[in-house]
């Protein structure tokens, strides 16, 4: 039983003489230049595809963050809270102010 690769090798070995005869190397070099250009073009296409895929991934990530991650609407805004409490505690002592700031921080962090 002949292996498939051997069969292919045999088949290539039986190709007509006209096909297997060596070609003019100068003419081949012109073709090689074209092949190099073709190869460069293929590389550029590949790189641009990669970049497009990366851009699509980043866009998808941004969209998913916007859709699935909503800032907690019940969470108080720290600055508003500060100004509100500070306005009420202007007359208090420094010690009290420090305590109020601590409480504000705790509230904002959800404690």
């Amino acid at each position: 039983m002949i292996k498939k690769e051997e069969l292919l090798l045999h088949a290539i070995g039986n190709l007509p003489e006209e096909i297997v005869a060596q070609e003019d190397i100068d003419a081949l070099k012109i073709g090689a230049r074209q092949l190099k250009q073709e190869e460069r073009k293929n590389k550029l296409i590949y790189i641009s595809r990669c970049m497009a895929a990366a851009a699509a991934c980043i866009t998808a990530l941004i969209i998913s963050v916007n859709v699935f991650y909503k800032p907690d609407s019940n969470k108080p805004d720290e600055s508003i809270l500060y100004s509100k409490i500070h306005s009420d505690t202007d007359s208090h002592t420094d010690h009290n102010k420090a305590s109020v700031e601590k409480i504000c921080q705790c509230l904002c962090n959800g404690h």
Partner: protein
Amino acid sequence: MNDETIVQLLWDRKEQGLENMSAKYENYCFSISCRIVNDKEDAKECVNDTWLNAWNSIPPNRPHNLAGYLAKLVRNISINCYNKKHTFKRGGDNITVALDELSECIASGSRVEENLELKLLTDTIAKFLAAQDMTKRWIFLQRYFYLAEIKEIADRLDMKEGTVKSVLCRMRKQLKKWLAKEAIYL
């Protein structure tokens, strides 16, 4: 001396044709054989067998392209030599050696169906190569007919090895599709 004259001399059974052929194509055939068998002595033997085969096969054959005809002969002789050498190198396990010996008893080395299959496959590959541009065809043949190394092909065309590899890779994929299109499933 041109190829037509050499073929005519061989056709007329004149030894001068053989001398001229060996003088003109010795290096060419030797380099093809050397790539395959990787041994100078074996390559020399294969080249001598090639002259003998050419002498015995012209007539009845009358090649239009002598270089291609000789390339085919020396390539196939060298591959047989390589296979024989490797059969024995493998430690000459009895079954392989016995099968190899027995294969010499079979008339043409294969069955009728296998010959037809081989002919069909050859024709399909020939059509595929004819559809390719000259450089790609040359690269494919250098690699799979003359069994040249990728580096050697790249050097001869002033190309990078990577380019040659990708050309070959794409051609193999195309050939696979082509064979499937022609309903040849290997």
